[in-house]
């Protein structure tokens, strides 16, 4: 196990230049997420169309490379998907980072975080964007990682 397994080039690159970082003037949904154990904070804003599909995704906040890269990759992956499809992906991602499955093609670039299987203490960092996205879609203003720790 080496640091470069967790901090792969794709993760480092998305941390350096996160996609969709900022805010959406035309948002329909938004939620804040907190990781109380480490103080990380994330805000996700969405533009959701009439059919319930995510058309646009933006995030902001102060967070670690794992959270930032996950949020960035997540935004790219969930465009065009509705809440049910996103929930299905979230379950697949949770299995991936717990080491319960090998790379999952459905997760696309998010597979870069697979090495979290060896870092239980850091899994929450990657789950925070998912929890915040789910809260935004549900219309709950706030999410925390403590429920899905």
């Amino acid at each position: 196990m080496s640091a470069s397994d967790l901090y792969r080039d794709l993760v480092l690159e998305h941390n350096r230049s996160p996609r969709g970082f900022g805010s959406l003037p035309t948002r329909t949904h938004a939620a804040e997420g907190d990781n109380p154990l480490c103080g990380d904070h994330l805000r996700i804003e969405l533009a959701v169309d009439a059919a319930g599909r995510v058309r646009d995704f933006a995030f902001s906040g102060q967070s670690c490379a794992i959270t930032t890269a996950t949020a960035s990759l997540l935004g790219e992956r969930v465009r065009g998907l509705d809440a049910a499809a996103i929930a299905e992906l979230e379950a697949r991602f949770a299995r991936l980072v717990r080491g319960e499955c090998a790379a999952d093609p459905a997760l696309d670039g998010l597979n870069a975080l697979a090495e979290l299987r060896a870092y239980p203490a850091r899994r929450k960092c990657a789950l925070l964007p998912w929890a915040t996205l789910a809260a935004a879609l549900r219309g709950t203003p706030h999410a925390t990682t403590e429920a899905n720790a």
Partner: protein
Amino acid sequence: MTARALPIEAPLDPQRIRADFPLLARSVHGKPLVYFDNANTGQKPAAVIEATSTFYREHNANVSRAVHQLGEEATAAYEAARDKLARFIGAPSRDEIVFTSGTTQAINLVAYSFALPRLEPGDAILVTQMEHHANIVPWQLVCARTGAKLKAAPIAESGELIVEKFVEMLTPEVKLAGVVHVSNVLGTVNPVAELARECRRRGIPLLVDGSQACPHMPVDVAALGCDFYALTGHKMFGPTGTGALWARREHLESMPPFFGGGEMIRRVSFEGTTFADPPHKFEAGTPNIAGVVGLGAAIDYLEGVGMRRIAAYERELLAYADAALARVEGLRVFGTAARKAAVISFLVEGAHAHDLATLLDHEGVAVRSGHHCAHPLMQFYGVPATARASLAFYNTREEVDRFVEALQRVRKLLR
């Protein structure tokens, strides 16, 4: 001979010290361990590990209950640790030492047995902005039950308490004050004797959180002039689940027991119970006997090395680390007090504390990242988390060099 009585002798030899700590020989991720998380918990010398296991192998019995030989031995070993701790912190009497599971329990004991019965609506408790949650939350709980208010004295950007403000805030409604002796985040050593003098002048009892002072410097509660002193054994290289509250005898006598049960009574009947004298009044149930015996061994060990010698060594190591870190580009250190223990909270531009900690761990360097149980302090500096390297007397300059080199590599990776 106590640490205080030792003359200034030859400087400490860290290699000899290291040989006494079995865990320091291990490696992590294929690299020799550099353990820089001492503010979180200290490693244990073989003497402590052996004292605990010898207790279980040869003397195990309950304390203060059995008249048989083992019971006598267990009680003697447990009470000997009380003598050692009393001497170690300069307590005027061994009966003023109440064993607890650590600082948290010690402060809660003062909150529930001392503060709760005394507080009334409109009263206040004063702490500082640099407190650990253990010296904040218990006061909030008793304030919520009594209508009293918790106030926090401000700190300066350097991480030093603004003493004039603290003194100004010691108004008549303040019924108790609390201050950390050494900050676990900033390393700041607070001028406790001066604060105690100001509190005493106004008749306000002062509690000192000594968690981070006892492992690193000579402590003399009588000279400090405070009323309560809380400490935790695991940071003093003793076993987890040990610690103590020192309190002036008159306070302990005035305080009702917190827990009730065995060991703490004189006579029990259904009409009423009379309690044992302090400290036993506060030690209900079977205590952590083997742990306390181990804590006694930790104190013997520290006194053997000498607290003044430890403090001098760590001061020099901190200066070395500060100079080495000054060469790291984009490094921000939180806490630059003139009187400072070897605790370095930091961030590197563009890198989050958790990434720093995970990547340093891969280099074998254990540092903590997070809010260090001090949310108000993180809010003061406007950061969600910091990374923290906290040193001890078994750490070396070579380890500081490895830490700084690793930090340089991490910085490049995240850039």
